[in-house]
């Protein structure tokens, strides 16, 4: 069966790779501050938590859902964790609580989506609202500050020139990739996202599997929260409100199918690179938030639209 499409890298991947290349070369020429090692370390530091969030989003999308609550969950988990650290004066308790909160919040979504059959966008959009409200409620609008010494280690410490966050994220990413590609739970997630009914027939329990998906995602966003709150040494009620959109963009740009069931999880990491680089360049050029939002939104939809082009061509040639 001659079918060139499956053997070529997908169109969105080509596009984003080219864009990245052009952007890096072109703007390195235009904006000399870009290549300075300090800036590159900066990008890596920015990208590290985004990688975790993108992995989480990628797993949810592969299972056929979507998660709009990540930003709110990260902020809330950060707040609760820091409060716990302050109350117990132990950084380990704090870190544990951050992750536990992330998992717990995600478990709520998992239960709603998995067993109550609530559409993922409603459940997570709802969580965005009420968890956000809860964050403001608890903090009264002001960030929680002055955590015990060492709490912000993951966000601020360096091994020589390299931020600690990078190897930590690298390890977690590796484990996540192994989880998705080499374990039964990972394989089940792919099969489920591809065709829920067929997955049911081969013995996968869709509700339980979706629940696990959200648990894993919650763990990853909890880790991201530790790094993010560590970086600024405080837990504000609104930490990174756009991070889930950046994550969705990364997943799309990386080439994971938005309808689920397809696309190596490593692609989520790959997609973070253009997003982080583009964000950095835009910041350096002084582009305001609004314009950045436009660009992110446009690229996300544009890339997903590109995914459809081969299909449209195929259909036309059927006549």
């Amino acid at each position: 069966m001659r079918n060139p499409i499956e053997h070529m890298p997908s169109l969105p991947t080509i596009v984003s790779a080219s864009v990245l290349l052009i952007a890096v070369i072109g703007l390195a020429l235009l904006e000399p501050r870009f290549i300075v090692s300090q800036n590159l370390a900066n990008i890596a530091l920015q990208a590290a938590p985004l990688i975790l969030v993108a992995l989480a989003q990628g797993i949810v999308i592969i299972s056929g859902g979507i998660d709009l609550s990540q930003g709110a969950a990260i902020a809330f988990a950060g707040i609760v964790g820091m409060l716990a650290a302050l109350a117990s004066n132990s950084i380990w308790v704090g870190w544990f609580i951050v992750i536990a909160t992330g998992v717990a919040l995600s478990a709520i979504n998992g239960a709603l989506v998995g067993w109550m059959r609530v559409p993922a966008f409603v459940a997570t959009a709802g969580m965005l609202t009420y968890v956000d409200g809860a964050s403001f409620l608890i903090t009264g609008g002001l960030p929680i500050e002055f955590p015990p010494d060492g709490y912000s280690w993951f966000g601020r410490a360096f091994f020589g020139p390299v931020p600690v966050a990078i190897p930590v994220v690298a390890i977690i990413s590796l484990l996540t990739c192994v989880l998705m590609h080499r374990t039964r739970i990972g394989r089940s997630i792919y099969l489920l996202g591809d065709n829920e009914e067929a997955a049911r027939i081969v013995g996968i329990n869709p509700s339980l599997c979706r629940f696990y998906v959200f648990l894993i995602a919650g763990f990853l966003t909890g880790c991201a929260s530790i790094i993010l709150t560590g970086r600024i040494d405080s837990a504000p009620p609104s930490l990174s409100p756009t991070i889930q959109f950046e994550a969705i963009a990364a997943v799309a740009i990386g080439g994971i199918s938005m309808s689920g069931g397809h696309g190596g999880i490593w692609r989520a990491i790959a997609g973070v690179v253009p997003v982080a680089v583009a964000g950095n360049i835009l910041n350096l050029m002084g582009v305001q938030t609004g314009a950045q939002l436009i660009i992110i939104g446009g690229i996300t939809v544009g890339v997903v639209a590109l995914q459809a082009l081969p299909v449209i061509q195929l259909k036309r040639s059927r006549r």
Partner: protein
Amino acid sequence: MSLGNQLLFAKGISKRFGANTVLDNVNFAVEAGSVHVLMGENGAGKSTLIKILSGIHMPDAGEIILQEECVLLSNPRIATDLGIRVVHQEFSLVAGLSVAENIHLGNQPRTKWGWVNNSERTESAKKMLDLLGATIDPDTLVGELTVGERQLVEIARALVGDAKILILDEPTAALSAREVDHLLSSVDRLKKLGVGLVYISHRMEEVRRVGDRVSVLRDGKLVLESDLSEVEDSALIQAMIGRPLDQQYPPRNFDLGDQLLEAQELSSPGAFEKITFSLRAGEVLGVVGPTGCGLNELGRALFGLLPTSSGVVRLQGKEVSLANARHAIHAGLAYVPDDRKVAGLMPNSSVKFNASAAILRRLTKYGQPIATKRENLAVESLVKQLNIIAPSNNTPIRLLSGGNQQKVVLGRWLLHGARAFILAEPTRGVDVGAKEAIYTQINGLASNGAGVLLLTSDLMEAIGMCDRLLVMQCGRVIAELARGELSMPTVLAALYTQEAHAQPH
């Protein structure tokens, strides 16, 4: 062939898809007030011919003459405007809208301001329904109608606005005996009104009852055309499959073992009632019935996919939990669903992923990674054994042909080593070549001591492949035929003359 009142003549129609010649120099004529039956196996070219007649495809060669004028049916709208209407197998009705609105879907009668004229629409709908002799209230929602009533609404829809030619594609596939009767009398009425009908079916009784002429396609060619009164059933069957019926299906030896799978008084509300059967090792037990009468639901229920209200299922004497598929798999059951696109395949996943899907638990110890080497070996051997044709084991399975896809869907259970196989419509949408491979495989299963429960609406397949046959109608088993009684006449007799109690609705 008498010209009479010829409405349509398709002359020398040929069509190729890529390297595949789907139709080869086919002639087909439709006369007013008569029924021309079109017969042939899956893949013989019937649906392509219909698509050409209705404007969905254009032929590569040949012409279509409509009432003495040569016409170019380049899109469906043109065909519809010229009076050629098709009633397809898959219903194109909207359940949430009323009968009247569905009948006029896309074509609502309007007042002079352009608004939809509800009363005129209801009246017009009533007129169409009356033409068919159907007593359906035009204001009911389609979602609340029975399957047979929906079929009539579909036909009514096709009649709106001066229909000259009506093409019915397997119209009785999902109907009960009483509904078939209803439909056929509607067809009679349409004949009297001068409509020219094309009727696709392989059910001999219906074909005999309403048909005037018959054409048989095989492998894209017209192999038989005659008045129905001048040809016998056996000649028709032979024309369709190319050899006598008893040579169509691969031979088997019948070495039956102990009782393997049994069901007792199994009921699922709204689907089927008090099903009892017993399947022995090495046996192929068939279950036939018009689709929609609980056949596929039975399959799903046995595998834990449909809730049951009462009854027991036992495999090798041990009771099987019907809570979910995992229990069924663990007990040693296998299930191939009737619609592989909807429930059988993971379309974007690779052949390997699909093939190994049922044995994931065996490939991993808890928490540890999947044993890739073992997985690859297992899939390789399966591909070789079933002769699955694919560019590689990592190809997305949606790119394979229907036959190869079905081989994978069946094959995944071979890897699992199940004892009892529940196969629902195993050769649906599969071309002739791959069908044979699947039949051989099924026989292989039985020879190796497994038991096969074959749920099918293809009567010829049932007769050719099974040792015993259960006949279902409206959720109940109404007859059981032993091997000696398996022939088309007896099966049809069991199917059409016995009426089960009507289901309340």
